[in-house]
């Protein structure tokens, strides 16, 4: 019965996304590119793909940073095109994707403000997908509470601030803790959204988000060895939507060295790929 009403809201975007997927480089393209000797050869090979128009429009050399900036611009254009035509629940889903970049931008701006960098210098380095209106004002805040009540309460990041509001001044350590708390709230919110949608979204997104949650837990644990972040503080930063919840996270909070972390990873066979 899905097909009867799916095309009302999402038919155009489905056709568009399928067209975009067909434009991704295939293994034959990669083989051709690996046989190129000069930049001109590469340009020639890329002409026939969807990327030809993007990269051949200017006179500059094909440096890595040029390719990177052009492709990022293209990604942002295509994403905005999809987002502006989207209806709920697709629009909410695409918004969730941008919150990740917003959190990174906020942390970048605060860190830059702490190092006395100019806001104008930092704004171009923010990821365009995570842009929001009050970005320029973020550097003024001194504590997380100030940040929230003055600036971020009107942005979409407001619901993720429940645990992160605190009176301590923002320094390097605090900024990282803030980032992890925001990310934890965001990941759990995204996971419950995908779970409520059900169907193919749940089947594909929930394992991906669970893996991301477990990955974050391991990274936070390993990075906190040697700093003064205690086990109790650590466990406040672990996202609880992964497979490690709740026993694995308790074990990780108590772990003091790499051996114990490896032992926790061994218990959960899905973490095999994480072990190196």
């Amino acid at each position, binding site marked *: 019965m899905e097909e009867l009403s799916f095309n009302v809201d999402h038919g155009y975007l489905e056709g*568009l996304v399928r067209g975009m997927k067909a434009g991704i480089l295939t293994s034959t393209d990669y083989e051709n590119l690996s046989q190129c000797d000069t930049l001109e050869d590469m340009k020639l090979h890329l002409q026939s793909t969807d990327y030809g128009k993007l990269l051949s429009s200017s006179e500059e050399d094909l440096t890595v940073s040029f390719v990177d900036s052009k492709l990022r611009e293209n990604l942002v254009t295509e994403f905005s095109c999809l987002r502006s035509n989207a209806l709920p629940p697709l629009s909410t889903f695409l918004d969730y994707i941008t919150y990740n970049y917003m959190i990174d931008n906020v942390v970048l701006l605060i860190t830059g403000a702490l190092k006395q960098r100019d806001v104008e210098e930092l704004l171009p380095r923010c990821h365009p997908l995570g842009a929001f209106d009050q970005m320029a004002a973020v550097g003024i805040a001194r504590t997380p509470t100030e940040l929230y009540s003055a600036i971020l309460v009107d942005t979409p990041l407001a619901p993720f601030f429940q645990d992160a509001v605190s009176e301590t001044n923002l320094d390097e350590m605090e900024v990282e803790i803030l980032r992890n708390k925001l990310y934890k709230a965001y990941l759990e919110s995204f996971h419950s959204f995908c779970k409520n949608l059900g169907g193919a979204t749940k089947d594909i997104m929930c394992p991906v988000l669970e893996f991301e949650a477990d990955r974050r837990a391991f990274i936070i644990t390993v990075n906190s060895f040697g700093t003064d972040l205690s086990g109790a503080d650590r466990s406040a930063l672990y996202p609880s939507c992964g497979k490690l919840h709740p026993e694995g996270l308790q074990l990780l909070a108590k772990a003091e060295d790499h051996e114990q972390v490896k032992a926790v990873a061994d218990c959960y066979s899905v973490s095999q790929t994480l072990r190196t």
Partner: protein
Amino acid sequence: MLLECMMNGHAILYTGVTLAFWSTILIVGICYTIFDLGFRFDVAWFLTETSPFMWACLGIGLAISLSVVGAAWGIYITGSSIIGGGVKAPRIKTKNLVSIIFCEAVAIYGIIMAIVISNMAERFTGTTPETIGAKNYQAGYSMFGAGLTVGFSNLFCGICVGIVGSGAALADAQNASLFVKILIVEIFGSAIGLFGVIVAILQTSKVKMGD
């Protein structure tokens, strides 16, 4: 917990309306039985007291409106996919209009049958079941039945052709050789609308309204 069982506002609304409807029917039925008014539920009286014109006009209305709903449904399903796929693969634009034409044909069947049926409605004098006569009753019911037949078969035919056409457009955008094969599926889907028209013509072939 009860709030979690309800997914969203629409679900609550539909359950509420269904519940209200069935409880009204149940309560009215119980009241009629208790108060010994069961004789008022009289199907024969209903069928003889309603004018054959009502049935005839209902049939004409259903023929055209249900066919148009089916055609519209099919066209929007196919149209949005053609537009979406045509952004990155512009070559599919012209060929896939054939799917839209198949959907439109369904609406044309509907209007033809509506015109054919409405031409059979003639005046008759007679106000009581005896004076109206069996022929007029038969005419009214046949026209209603024919309208229902052609309306519903075109409704589902239109939806079918629309969904297949949407798949044809998206497949054509990826691989041009698939279009002709999927078109064959569409032709079979389109044939079922024609079956409805044929049966409706047979139903109204013996209709003779009038004195």
